[in-house]
């Protein structure tokens, strides 16, 4: 399922994936029901949810957070991620 590269950068080197704030999460599972890339996995008989498949997450997609009523999902800073991707691209070009 995982994308192998994004903008020429190995996907596993790009730290872009959701983080669940368990202080807010109500385990309504709306995010898991929505995400077609199986980033989330249900545990404990479907009562808990974890971010299981980090590199399945589409870089810069924040759609699951936009489905989250209790606002429990956050993503990394976008400009920082873009800078990181550009830095890795330069490193790869030099090599």
């Amino acid at each position, binding site marked *: 399922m995982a994308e192998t590269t994004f903008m020429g950068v190995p996907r596993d080197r790009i730290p872009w994936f959701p983080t669940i704030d368990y202080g807010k999460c109500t385990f309504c599972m709306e995010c898991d029901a929505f995400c077609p890339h199986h980033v989330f996995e249900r545990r404990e008989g479907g009562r808990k949810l974890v971010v299981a498949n980090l590199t399945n997450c589409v870089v810069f*997609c924040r*759609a699951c957070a936009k489905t989250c009523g209790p606002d429990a999902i956050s993503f990394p800073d976008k400009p920082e991620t873009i800078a990181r991707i550009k830095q890795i691209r330069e490193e790869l070009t030099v090599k």
Partner: protein
Amino acid sequence: MKRAILSCNGLDKPEGSVAREVAIRGADATASEIICPVLLNRAPARYRKALTDSLLIVVDGCSTRCATKLATRLEAKVERKLLVSDAVKASGRPLESTLGLGPNGLALARSIVDEWVRNLDAQAPAVGPVADFETPAEYLVVTHDKFEFRIPAVDYLFNENDVWTRVLDGVARVGISDYMQQKLTDISYFDPPKVGAVVEQFGELGSLESAKAVFEIVAPAGGTVAAVNPAVIGNPALVNEDPYGAGWLVEVQLTGWPQDQELLLDPAAYAETVQRKAAEE
């Protein structure tokens, strides 16, 4: 055309109380009818006339977007959507933790309605197009199972978030690809960026909504928003019907071109990306 307001009833969250207040104040300010979401869900026939004859203002309390989902299910024509939880973040003032309406909640409801009504009075904002683009003449076609995804063969560039751009005289026209419009299915709402807003490459150029998802439009190039497509605001289905032509979304006066081009895909490379994505689903 008349207006009707469909709002979150919000009995279990502070944002819901604000949504309800927005509906009441908005109905008063714009002489609109209020549609009760509970009754609409139970007996849609009660509001059939209102939904047919009116433009709908949808007020959601939180991102669960219950009111939006109801409107989508009933295929109502949505003129404007308001999301209280986003307005809370933008205001920088948290709501009171009580379910009833506190001073911050009341102030926020007033400000949401004031801005909405002010925009109505201002009529349509100055929007595009600012450049004269031609419809693509030739396409690459990616097939997967029974699906066909078209990609213009020349002049268009793409980011990996399925957003295209076409550049003419320093202006980039932006839209979503045929692959993404098919993934989203029937697009029901376009929330455009503000004309004049400065957006970096990979920043947000508004969003599209369908019953399946809220899709963030990831900017393929940086610049200043010069125009948004008024035709799509009035008829979001245009994106499904003609994603590379009449369904364009935004025009951006470029500030980082041609450097931004380095991070975009040409049609052949994007065709490979689409093939891979379709295979992974």
